[in-house]
Structure formats: structure tokens, C-alpha cells
């Protein structure tokens, strides 16, 4: 690689938490760093701007998290969502997660005191004070203070890994930037509707993307095309049930739809298709996201009456209301006869808290839908991120299909999270993976560049 002049020691592709952690770690290790954020400054931070908390291992209570969450518990939960995960990498991740809170705090991130009674009880996660955008702001402030060069609106068009030191092409007119090492922290590909459609078929047209529109997967595709080992599953997403009126991008946490378990859910034909009482815990959002993603037209309707409608937090969008089931059906574009039959059959089948002789059954929280006004929310699948990534080693180096590492190419965050999460997801783990591997990737990239 002698003879080629480099613009920077370390180039970081991405502008979310993994990229920021990598830039900080690399800069603190003495490297000159350029960070390329595809978004504009006000919308910077990738999906991290929509995050709230981070799952971390800890042996004893800290000011930021109650109780204890031993490595064994964390690993067991990871195995449950991803039994194919890399065991060595998972253990390294879980053990490193213990120290990441202090490291982030040392880099300006503020956490919500665990003793504050407004927080939901958690022995597993720390909460960012003010949420993910506050974290993003704090990390950008630190990055800037350390003297990292930042380019906003810096969407990468191509990666060049096979000929000398890594380089990227970006911008209009095109510019090529070369660095001694590269950290790719550009997230998943959920922002590329075409790619989603190839994996999911027509259903993808109805997905809302809950986070940044800039996760278009260009660097991911480039890495795979140049021989990186894929990991995870291209046809898997982390998704939750959102209000069907959510914006196409960036709807974040607030479009998530509560209350599904309290009423019934029908497809656009007006028929129930799943047991609404099967899951009532926090995973209900993801369970329903995946169910609705496979509905005809990618849409379903959560139905309730005046009594049930008081039992959950309403959507940020107004409920569609009518004084009769028939009128409600018309408002939703469903044949009134079918919806009437569905509701009548459901009401008639309720015995106690569940239904009897109904298919599919409702096994919990079965209340009759009787009292007008009747209400409904349209439901769609909201995609958080895709589950396809590149394989990395314990130094966050991207691995080729022959098992050897690329020279000076590292990955961090959601683009390598499937090494640990497979095609699954564990709440609060993505932010921890981003911080832990961002820090490792930045440090290793600096070591590689400065050796």
C-alpha cells in the first residue's frame, strides 16, 4: 500500500451510534478520521435517533440500572433469539457491554438515573436521558471536539476494497476518498424499497420504515459484492405493528400501535386471522408486525368498542369511528356483512376471558365488542431494520468467504449485528452492539492505519 497517498487514517461510513463510537475510538487512538453521514445535519444519527435504551450486562446495581444482569442471563436470551449466532463473538459482546456505559458517559452521553420512578422498571437496560437524539447530539459534540472531520449529506456511492487501501466514492460530482482503514457502520438496507421488494415480494410495498431513509444498504451490498461473508437473513426484518397512517420513514416509537390485544384484529376482508390474546407482553408489537406483514395488502384493522377503547393508550392518529359495525366496515372499506358476521361470531363465542369454539380463538382479554361508538386503527408492519449483515471477527474486521479478513476493513452496528442476533432481535441489544463494536472497530481501524 506504499505509494498511494491517503486522505485520512480512518474513514467511517455512517452517522449513527456505531459510526460515532468508531470515530471517537479511532480519534482517541491518534488517527485522523473522516465521518461520512448520509443524512443532513438536522436528521443525523441513523436509527439511533429513535432509540431509547441499551441492554447491558452488569453484576451489581449502578446509578443507571437496577439489580443485576449477569452474562449468563444475557447470553441465554441471545441464544433464544439467535441459536446460530457466533458464540465467541456473543460472549465478547456481552462482557464488553458491561463497560460501555461508562465509556459512553465519558464521551458525553447522559443516562437517566435508575432510581427515578418515572422509568419503567428494568434490570437489563440503561435509558438515555432524553432518548436517542440526545445521545446522538452528545456523541457528535464529542466527535467535533476531538477534531474528527464530519461530512453531512455524504452518501456513499461505491466502496473500493480490492485494490490498495480502502476507498469510497461519494457525492455529485463524484469524489473518491482514500483512507488507511475503513469502518463501515451504515446500518441495514430497509431504506431501499427495491431490495426489500426482492426479498419480501409485494408485501414490502406496504411497509413503513420506522427509522432513517438513508439506510439504503449501498455499503452493505458493496461489501457482499466484493466477497464479504453474509450473515443473518436477507428476508428477515425487525418489525413492529404501527398505525397504518404512519409516515413512510422516520415514524419511530410513536407510531407503534398499542391495544391490539384488547380488541380483535381483522384483515381487509373483515376476517380474524390470529389469536389476539396469545401475546400480551412487550413482544406483542413484533409478533403483530410480522403477522400483518403477511396479510393481503399488508394491512389489518385493530377493532374495539367504546369500553375496550379506554383500556389502552390511543394512537397518535385519531381512531376511525362509527356508531355501528356496518358503518365502521364501510369506513374501512370492508364488506359490512362480513365484518358484522365476524364480530357477532366473536361476541357469541366469549366465555369468561376467552373464546370457545372460535377459529382462530382469542385466548386472553376477550371482551365483547358491543358498545358504540366502535373504533378502529389501520395496522401495518413498521420495519426497524433488516437482518442481513457481514461476518466479522473479534476485532470487528470484515471476513471474506475464505475466512480471511479484508485488509483494513471493519464493520460495526446493525451491519454486523446479525453475527450476534442472527435473523432475530432482542430489545435494547442493537444499541449495545453498536456502541461495543463501534468502539472496537474504531480502535482496531486506528491500530491498522497507524501500524
Amino acid at each position, binding site marked *: 500500500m506504499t505509494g498511494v497517498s491517503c486522505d485520512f487514517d480512518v474513514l467511517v461510513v455512517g452517522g449513527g451510534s456505531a459510526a460515532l463510537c468508531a470515530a471517537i475510538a479511532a480519534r482517541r487512538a491518534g488517527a485522523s478520521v473522516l465521518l461520512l453521514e448520509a443524512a443532513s445535519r438536522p436528521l443525523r444519527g441513523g436509527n439511533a435517533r429513535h432509540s431509547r435504551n441499551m441492554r447491558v450486562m452488569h453484576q451489581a446495581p449502578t446509578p443507571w440500572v437496577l439489580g443485576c444482569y449477569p452474562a449468563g442471563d444475557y447470553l441465554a436470551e441471545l441464544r433464544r433469539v439467535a441459536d446460530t449466532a457466533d458464540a465467541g463473538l456473543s460472549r465478547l459482546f456481552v462482557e464488553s457491554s458491561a463497560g460501555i456505559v461508562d465509556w459512553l458517559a465519558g464521551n458525553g452521553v447522559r443516562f437517566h438515573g435508575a432510581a427515578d420512578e*418515572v*422509568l419503567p422498571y428494568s434490570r437489563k437496560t440503561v435509558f438515555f436521558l*432524553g*432518548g436517542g437524539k440526545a445521545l446522538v447530539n452528545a456523541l457528535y459534540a464529542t466527535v467535533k471536539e476531538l477534531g474528527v472531520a464530519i461530512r453531512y449529506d455524504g452518501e456513499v456511492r461505491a466502496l473500493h476494497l480490492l485494490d490498495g487501501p480502502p476507498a469510497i466514492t461519494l457525492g455529485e460530482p463524484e469524489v473518491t476518498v482514500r483512507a488507511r482503514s475503513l469502518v463501515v457502520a451504515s446500518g441495514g438496507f430497509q431504506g431501499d424499497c427495491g431490495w426489500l421488494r426482492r426479498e419480501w415480494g409485494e408485501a414490502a410495498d406496504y411497509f413503513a420504515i420506522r427509522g432513517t431513509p438513508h439506510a439504503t444498504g449501498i455499503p452493505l451490498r458493496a461489501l457482499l459484492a466484493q466477497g464479504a461473508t453474509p450473515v443473518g437473513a436477507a428476508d428477515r426484518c425487525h418489525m413492529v405493528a404501527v398505525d397504518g397512517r404512519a409516515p413512510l420513514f*422516520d415514524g419511530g416509537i410513536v407510531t407503534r400501535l398499542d391495544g391490539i390485544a384488547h380488541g380483535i384484529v381483522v384483515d381487509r376482508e373483515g376476517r380474524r386471522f390470529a389469536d389476539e390474546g396469545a401475546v400480551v407482553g412487550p413482544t406483542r408489537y413484533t409478533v403483530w408486525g410480522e403477522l400483518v406483514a403477511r396479510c393481503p395488502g399488508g394491512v389489518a384493522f385493530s377493532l374495539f368498542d367504546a369500553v375496550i377503547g379506554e383500556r389502552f393508550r390511543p394512537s397518535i392518529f385519531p381512531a376511525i369511528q362509527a356508531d355501528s359495525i356496518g358503518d365502521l366496515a364501510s369506513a374501512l372499506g370492508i364488506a359490512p356483512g362480513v365484518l358484522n358476521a365476524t364480530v357477532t361470531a366473536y361476541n357469541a363465542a366469549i366465555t369468561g376471558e376467552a373464546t370457545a369454539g372460535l377459529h382462530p380463538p382469542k385466548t386472553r382479554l376477550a371482551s365483547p365488542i358491543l358498545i358504540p361508538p366502535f373504533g378502529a386503527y389501520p395496522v401495518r408492519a413498521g420495519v426497524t431494520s433488516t437482518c442481513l449483515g457481514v461476518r466479522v471477527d473479534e476485532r470487528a474486521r470484515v471476513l471474506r468467504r475464505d475466512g480471511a479478513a479484508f485488509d483494513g476493513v471493519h464493520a460495526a452496528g446493525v451491519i454486523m449485528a446479525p453475527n450476534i442476533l442472527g435473523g432475530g432481535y432482542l430489545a435494547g441489544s442493537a444499541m449495545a452492539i453498536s456502541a461495543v463494536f463501534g468502539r472496537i472497530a474504531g480502535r482496531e481501524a486506528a491500530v491498522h492505519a497507524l501500524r
Partner: protein
Amino acid sequence: MPCADDDTERIAATARRALDICNACQFCDGYCAVFPALKSRRLVSANDLTFLSNLCHNCRSCYHACQYAPPHAFDLNLPKSLSLVRQQSYRDHVWPPPLRGRLPGTGWSFVAAVTFVSVALVVLPVLLWVPPELVFGRHAGEGAFYRVVPWGAVAGVAGAVMLWSLLAIGFSVASFWRGMGPAPAGVALRPALCDALSDAASLRNLGGGGAGCNDRDERFSRARRRFHHALFYGVALCFAATGVATVYDHGLGWQAPYPVLSLPVLFGSLGGGGMVIGTAGLVLLKLRADPGPVAKGLAGADCALLALLFLVAASGLSLLALRETAAMGLGLLVHLGLVLGWFATLPYSKFLHAPFRFAALLRAAMERQARRVGKRAGNARGRG
């Protein structure tokens, strides 16, 4: 005025939408008392808007931390939305009732006009009826001030105006208290009052959960909290000075002016200094603040109060400096006129934020007590 009604409704609808989104998010829980209070409500009523908008200290941390702030399509701007509702709540609860919907204004002109009239009302009669050699002469020793303006006139006029203002504020606060909706029942008032007093005295809600606030931009600072402390405790010290002076005069028979090292002068100059620093600092922060979360139209009313308080303090300090010169008479008149103007505008200026904020803090503290009681009762039932 249908136009104004439309405005009112639009402002309320925007704020309600913002709060609904905030309630679905709750990431800002740790910043201030607004979010826990919001969390305990499923829906936001008009009463809740009145309450929450006055509980907001306008620290703007939630704006800078907001993933839905512009240019996001949701265009969420909670501090700005609540500022506009808050301003309307001052108008809705002003006393006497015929002024409702008219005063207090959003600009600086009302406060400026009343202050100007007050200064004129003090200065002109003296200039007309008191011999110039008295007004422009040098005075020394006990009772020097009262040779220019008789004590009875000062105490009588200022007292009457203050009495009216306190009455008006009292009625306004009572109306505002009802405007927040029914208070939680069965709450012990004393601990809630202690809570609210501590919140007000420490400005805990300008702490940003420990980090400080976004006084100017994304960076956190404690400047606004400190300047407000300087102003608040400065005003308190000035009232303490007046109180001590009253005891000296009527209890002990010592008449003003007092020596530099006496309690009234020490309290007064320390308080005046605090007010000058506090008001100047707050105005500078305002001028340099990121305009994003600021309701621009309200800056006039804010700055009018700050400017008036600055002038009150500065004229008091000048009086101290000039009290042994020929300028004392005029300095005294201007200072008294400004103080009178401040007293007269109390119920009709941005000053209303102080009693309203305290009432909202008290309400929030009562709700916290009620939630704790509810939780304990729930736990007891759970065990039973």
C-alpha cells in the same frame, strides 16, 4: 373577534397534538416535571393544557432531544407550542374579568406605557409643587429622601398600587387554579407545598435531569438557571431591605437614608446587583438563543419585564451612588416611578408566570403525592 378565537383553537390543537405525540414517546421523562405529569394522563384536556403549559419552564431540552422536531414531517415543537398556550392562559385568567382575552399583551408596549405614566405621575407633581431648590438640592442625614417626597405619599401610593396588584394576582391565580381542573382529592397539602417550594426555590426543573438545559443550542448549560436565581434572590433581597428599613423607621425610629454598612443598604445593593446581573444575563441568553424552539411574538413581553426590572435595580443602585449629590432628588423620583410602574404591571405582565408557575408546581406535587398514595394502596391490595 373570530380571528383571535381561530388562533386560540389552532394554538390549543397544535399543543395537544404535540403532547399526544410526547405521551406516546416519553423519551424526555427525565428532563422535567411536565413529562411525568403528562404520562399520568391518557388524553390531554383543555385543563391539562393550562396546567402543563405553565408547568413548562421553557428549558428547551425536549426540543433539542426531539427526533420529531423540524425538519421531521411531524414538525413537533413542544416548548414553542406550550409557550403560546401559556401566554393565552395569562390572558384567560387576568383580573378583573373585563380584561380577559385582552391583557396581558404579548408585546412590550403595555408595560412600557404603564411604566412611563408611573414615572411621570411621580416626577411631574413633585416638579410642579415641590420647590426646585429642594428637589435639586443636596440632602444629607436622616429623612433626606422624605424632604423630596413625603413618606406618606410614597407609602400611600405604592401601598395602594401594590394592594391592588396583589388582589388582582390573587384572583388570577384562583381562576388559574380552577382552570387546571379539579385538584386530586385526599392529598395532604403540607408535603406538596414543601415540594413545590423546594422546586421553585431551586428551579429543579431547569436542571435537565442533571445535565443542565439547552439555554442557547444543543449544548447544555446552567446559565439560565443561575441568572434566574440571581434575579429571583435579588428581588427577594430588595424586599428584605425594604422590610428591614420599615422596622428601622417605624420600630426603632431610624429614618432613611441608612449608612452603607447597614442591613437595608447591604441587602438592597446585593439584591440590586443580583437583579442587574440576572436580567442582563437572561436578555443576552434570549438574544443568542437558537430561534427554533422560541415563540418569537412573545419575546416583547419577556424583555419588557426584564428591562423594567433592570431599570428598577439600576436606578436603585444609582440612587445609592448619587444620594449625597444634587442628583439625588431626581434619581429618587425616577427610581420610585419605576418601582411604581413595576408594581402596577405585576398582574398584567410576564410577571404572572411566577405565581402561575408556582401554582402549577404545587399541582404537580399534589399529583405526585396522589400517585404515591395510589401506588401504596395498590401494593397493599396486592398483598391482601
